[in-house]
């Protein structure tokens, strides 16, 4: 009798576990994907040529529908890191929980890409999605890549398909686990989609840094090099125009960055990235890009100077999960005067194999 009772209890518990799984199976699903790239470089071939292969970011991507309205998205990238013995280290790029409270409105909590412009909000770390080989230069100097915080977002409102994002979170100086500043960084962004393939965006970002330090995930490599460690008010206005049609593609990313310090006043920095692609065949695109950035001499947030890049490229898509890009580029400065006499133009060739599955 005792054994019978035990079996009955076991059966009951088992049926509960199996039953619960069946219920959840209808709503819960988890998917793993991976994106990555491998590159071949032929750098500075007119002065001091260098040729090498390079292993790019390996991006592990996971999404899960936890309930009907709650979902999770995670993106972990393993990439080169000179500070580790293996020279590669993982980096948590996104970890966010989204709650859909209305059909086209949601709230997101966690670490996300700051929706200041089209590139940062759409491509993230997926080279497979990049229209060119590299991100705009401004991403290393003035675009705040990540925010750890809360985001309200909406889309598809009205005939112009208006969308908005409002983000409050840890700012440029923060790490993933703390922020030295009491005040938080604020992002306000809006966009319209007048036609299916056209998107126009505007955004404003503000962060007051008590000390001019750049956290590991701000993306501001230039700020890490700055010797100024005093207070600074960082403001960024951005505009994106993105058109990706059947025949041709266009993306313009404009950023105006104003940094205020008590010592040097306002420093005005700007950058503009333009991409123009023509699809010569369904899976082949010829493209041209210009990337220009100018950081003011009185700027204390970053050590940037000025950059002017032109490139011609060719993209071949073997499938939607694997593409090759070849890019010939010229990197130099905007002005060639006495102050920039040391700056020499350099010419590089890059080949990128980007994949996802």
């Amino acid at each position, binding site marked *: 009798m005792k054994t019978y009772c035990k079996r009955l209890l076991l059966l009951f518990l088992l049926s509960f576990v199996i039953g619960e799984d069946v219920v959840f199976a*209808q709503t819960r699903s988890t998917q793993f994907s991976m*994106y990555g790239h491998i590159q071949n470089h032929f750098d500075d071939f007119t002065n001091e040529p260098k040729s090498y292969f390079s292993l790019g970011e390996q991006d592990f991507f996971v999404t899960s529908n936890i309930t*009907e309205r709650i*979902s999770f998205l995670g993106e972990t990238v393993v990439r080169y890191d000179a500070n580790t013995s293996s020279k590669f280290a993982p980096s948590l790029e996104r970890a966010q929980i989204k709650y859909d409270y209305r*059909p086209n409105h949601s709230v997101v909590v966690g670490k996300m890409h700051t929706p200041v412009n089209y590139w940062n909000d759409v491509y993230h770390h997926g080279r497979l999605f990049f229209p060119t080989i590299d991100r705009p230069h401004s991403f290393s100097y003035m675009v705040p890549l990540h925010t750890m915080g809360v985001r309200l977002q909406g*889309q598809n409102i009205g005939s112009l398909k208006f969308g908005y994002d409002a983000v409050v979170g840890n700012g440029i100086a923060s790490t993933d686990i703390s922020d030295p500043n009491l005040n938080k960084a604020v992002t306000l962004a809006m966009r319209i989609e007048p036609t299916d393939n056209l998107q126009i965006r505007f955004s404003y970002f503000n962060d007051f840094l008590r000390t001019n330090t750049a956290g590991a995930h701000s993306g501001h490599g230039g700020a890490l090099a700055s010797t100024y460690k005093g207070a600074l008010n960082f403001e960024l206005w951005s505009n994106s125009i993105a058109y990706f049609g059947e025949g041709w593609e266009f993306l313009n990313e404009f950023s105006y960055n104003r940094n205020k310090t008590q010592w040097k006043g306002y420093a005005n920095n700007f950058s503009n990235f333009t991409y123009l692609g023509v699809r010569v065949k369904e899976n082949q695109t010829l493209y041209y890009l210009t990337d220009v950035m100018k950081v003011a001499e009185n700027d204390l947030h970053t050590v940037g100077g000025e950059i002017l890049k032109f490139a011609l490229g060719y993209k071949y898509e073997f*499938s939607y999960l694997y593409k090759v890009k070849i890019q010939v580029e010229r990197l130099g400065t905007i002005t060639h005067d006495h102050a920039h006499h040391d700056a020499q133009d350099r010419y590089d060739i890059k080949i990128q194999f980007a994949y996802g599955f």
Partner: protein
Amino acid sequence: MGFKRWWLVMVIFLGVGIVTPILGQSDLVFMGNDLSMTEMNTALMKDVFKARYALWPNGKSITVCLPGSKSVHAEKVAQEIYGKSIQDVQKFWLSVVFQGKAKSPHFFDSEKEMSDFIAKTPGAIGVITKSGGFTAPKSQLIKINP
């Protein structure tokens, strides 16, 4: 008589050719389950299939079902709903999911599999073509108004 009849046939033929696209006659068949509606307009249908909404008005999560790339319906669906090639539709969804805007769609190589999945998934909507010859269950049919 020959000329008159020939003329009449031509008028009917041309009339049908012109009027049919205007009325938005489509070869697409839509199936759904617990969407809080049994009919919708073309604009809303396209918005749903383009991941512009996450939920139906009844709060059910939207699950998009599409023909697999090798399915006989794939090309027609890609052109009529997205105005794109099959590969571009695959790229579109890969990008949308990567952005975190929507959950992944489900792809099916057979109409029966899609219909069965929809039957057990509240909030699911799927599309096939009439030319495939599959008769969708009446309870799943969603009417699309121009």
